[in-house]
């Protein structure tokens, strides 16, 4: 199973890249939560344990030939849908949304894992289509495939995550060879028909959140507050930043909220400035480009599409999360991969990296 040729193809750079981001994450979490609990390292320890679990899961995934995932894709899909149904009926209510299943030692957020699950099952579905996208409606099954989990997540309600599915779908359709003009038409129809549909199914706070980023001072006390404080944190970081651990006043004086979860980038940018922010963005860019490189080398379209799905997901997460903290994207509650404090997201991303590494390791079609 662990043959030498497999290790030869192991993408160490990708793993190092991930480790670098996780390392930064742990430092920032420590810096933002040092005064939050009696144990200054409480959050860091928890996140480190999750990382260890994630790393272990990654290793397991790496060791299983990914063609098994292809084979089990329908079950993965069904299992994810089942979990999402479960969370909808038996989930833990938190802040008006039901997103978690309480496993006592761990609060499972099925929508996070659904991202990877749907990427795998959709990749099998699209690979089976073998680039046959002549008809305008040839993508319809793919849409329906994604629609089921997406609607379940939207009902939680979790607008941001459900939007991730659409973006992943389009990214994968594009790389699966769907007609470019058709894709543009879908987007157009989506905006004209889908958006109003979405709008009337949204809760008030979601609507508010969707547009408040355009003018956060319209509601500086509530929805706009986080955006304003985040902009102040990022902007006042300047070129070199204020330093970590109680140097960033926005962070340690508590003006930033959720500074170790969704808004961790604000605290990071305040502490490390433009230099640090760009380094982190470049790390993400390398990570994603590395995944695309593996996609380009994959031995089959299933592997390629899975990698593309993962790359799309991460790109979108980075864009929306960082964009949110710097006021160019709505506040949707999407975590920053490997950075935000939280178990499900980290585990899922580690697993996704495992799958990608797996595909990269098994790229040669011809054995000698």
């Amino acid at each position, binding site marked *: 199973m662990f043959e030498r040729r497999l290790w030869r193809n192991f993408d160490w750079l990708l793993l190092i890249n991930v480790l670098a981001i996780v390392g930064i994450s742990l430092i920032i979490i420590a810096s933002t939560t040092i005064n939050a609990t009696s144990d200054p390292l409480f959050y860091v320890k928890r996140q480190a344990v999750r990382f260890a679990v994630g790393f272990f899961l990654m290793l397991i995934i790496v060791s299983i030939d990914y063609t098994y995932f292809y084979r089990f894709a329908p079950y993965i899909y069904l299992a994810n849908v089942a979990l999402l149904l479960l969370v909808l009926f038996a989930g833990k209510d938190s802040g008006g949304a039901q997103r978690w299943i309480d496993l006592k030692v761990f609060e499972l957020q099925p929508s996070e894992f659904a991202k990877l699950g749907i990427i795998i099952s959709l990749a099998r579905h699209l690979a089976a289509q073998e680039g046959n996208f002549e008809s305008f409606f040839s993508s319809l099954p793919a849409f329906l495939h994604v629609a089921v989990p997406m609607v379940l997540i939207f009902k939680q309600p979790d607008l941001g995550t459900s939007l991730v599915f659409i973006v992943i779908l389009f990214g994968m359709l594009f790389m699966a060879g769907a007609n470019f003009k058709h894709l543009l038409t879908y987007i157009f129809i989506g905006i004209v028909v889908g958006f109003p549909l979405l709008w009337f199914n949204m809760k008030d706070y979601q609507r508010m959140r969707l547009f408040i980023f355009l003018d956060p001072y319209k509601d500086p006390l509530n929805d706009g507050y986080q955006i304003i404080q985040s902009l*102040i944190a990022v*902007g006042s970081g300047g070129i070199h930043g204020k330093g970590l651990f109680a140097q960033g006043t926005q962070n340690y004086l508590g003006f930033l909220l959720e500074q170790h979860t969704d808004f961790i980038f604000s605290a990071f940018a305040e502490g490390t400035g433009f230099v640090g922010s760009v380094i982190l963005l470049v790390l993400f860019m390398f990570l994603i480009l590395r995944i695309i490189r593996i996609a380009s080398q994959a031995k089959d379209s299933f592997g390629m599409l899975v990698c593309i799905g993962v790359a799309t997901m991460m790109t979108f997460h*980075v*864009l929306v999360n960082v964009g949110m903290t710097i*006021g160019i994207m709505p506040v949707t509650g999407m975590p920053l991969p490997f950075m935000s404090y939280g178990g499900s997201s980290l585990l899922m991303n580690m697993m996704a990296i495992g799958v990608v590494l797996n595909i990269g390791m098994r790229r040669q079609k011809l054995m000698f």
Partner: protein
Amino acid sequence: MTKSLQKRLRFFVLAVLIVTMLLTARLAWLQIYQYEYYVAKAENNRLRELPITAARGEIRDRNGEVLAKNRPGFAVSLLDLEKAYKDEVIALLSEILAVSPEEIKSKIATQQYKSFAPIRIADDVSTEIVAKVAEHQTELPGVIIETTPVRIYPGQTLAAHVLGYVGTIQADQYQKWGKEKGYRISDIVGQTGIELAFEEYLRGKDGAEVVETNHYGQRVRELGTVPPVSGNNLTLTLDARLQRIVEKALADIIVGLQEGGNSQAGKGAVVAIDPNSGAIRAMASYPAYNPNTFNQDYLQLMSDSDLPLINKAIAGAYPIGSTFKMIVGTAGLEEGFISPTTRFVCVGRKVYFRGEPPRGCHGGAVHGASNVVRALQVSCNNFFFELGKIMGIDTIIEYAEDFGLGKPTGLRDVPGEVKGTLLRREEGKPWYPGNVLTAAIGQGHAITPLQLANYGAILANKGTHYRPYLVQTITSPEGKTIFSAEPEVLNKMDVSETTWQTIHEGLKAVTEPGGTGSSLRTLPVKVAAKTGSAQASQDDSILPHSLFLGFAPADNPEIALAVIVEHGGLGYQAAVPLAKQILAEYYAEDNVEINE
């Protein structure tokens, strides 16, 4: 790998690069281009300049007894408007402070545009409230507890009308002083009395403290402090011991009158001046108020028909009555209309001008022939009718003005002195020949108790009108003298010694057997005095005002005393016993001290 796939992958890579560049560009905009703007915002978020209210200067009597000082108190203020103006915060605050949310909102509304300083919601709150606010700090972002000095008056009502009181700066005061003198909208300033007149001396210089606050508005650490500088201390000319005696006697007499069935009595005033300098030793107005509880009592005080907020000693104008007669006597002697031995005969009621009703002495008394000394002693109206008639009104008024009547005495240390009126010939007003008679016995004029005391002082010191004053010295908090009052002569009368001696003789005779103030003869000190019963109305059912004017010791005056008891009846019924009680207690204790 197909060519199309290659192309699409390249497109994908491009998308990732664009996303990275877009985010980088935005970061550059925020962190490099707009850096200064956001740094300022972040500083603004965390740094607060909290004013430290300076203590007002203390006010003491001439012997150092504290009349007004400060104690530490707590105030509840709002710091961070953006957060503090949330409804939940106001609702909770309203519950804790027991004031309506509307009141809090109106305070915010009136203050927020005028100053960046904390908005004062409640002054001098209890420690229970302080504890409650602290307990709910996380639910009350932007709410802070300020320590502020609270003005207290240890003597309660003692010298209340002289001291005045303090209160939150009024809208018109803020308009007038706010910008120029750097007042804040929640500042406590003098509203009347010494507190108002010496506001600029008493007021200290506020300090400031720069603190770092977290998003609850709680202070995290202190970054720097500019200590406040207390205001200057005042030493008044008042003698707290005398003031206390005066206030007690005034209350005793008036309450005694009321208990004795005089339902008209209820108001009065006493002023004591040092005739050698113009220093006011006591000034009392009845009823008084307690400046410590002024705010709580305000509505009641405002609706009281006895006007306890008015300092009647300077703002109340009363007919002067018989105490005016020394003016007519002095004028007659000095202008040569009479000599000390000139006699007029009093035969009872008499018609002085044809067509007028007859006039006479009080109660139809017949005094027979009197010189000026006896006329003063028995307060013979007919003597002064005769003298007034030959002298004419203009001479009377000229002398009245020399004695400081009909114009302000010149007291500047407290605001609100009225100048009173004299019954003088004025163009456009009908003048009756009989008016000169009315004027000669002190009717038709209106004088303040201060004017009366000042007039007494001029009599006592034989013609010098010193400016009456209340503030003796002003010292800085370090003890440096900033101001020290010197007696200021406003007018010196050119009157012969003989005239003064004659008048003094008359006044001394008043407190001897047969005089109207003979009850004062038992005092341990010889008093020169004149009583008065000033007709308050044509209506006989309205009791006259009871007046007393005197100085003691008669031969070496150190105090000039004026007493007015509104509707107290005749002079001997209220004003004389009042003056007697004051002088008895004042000199009795003096003797005790000497004996020790």
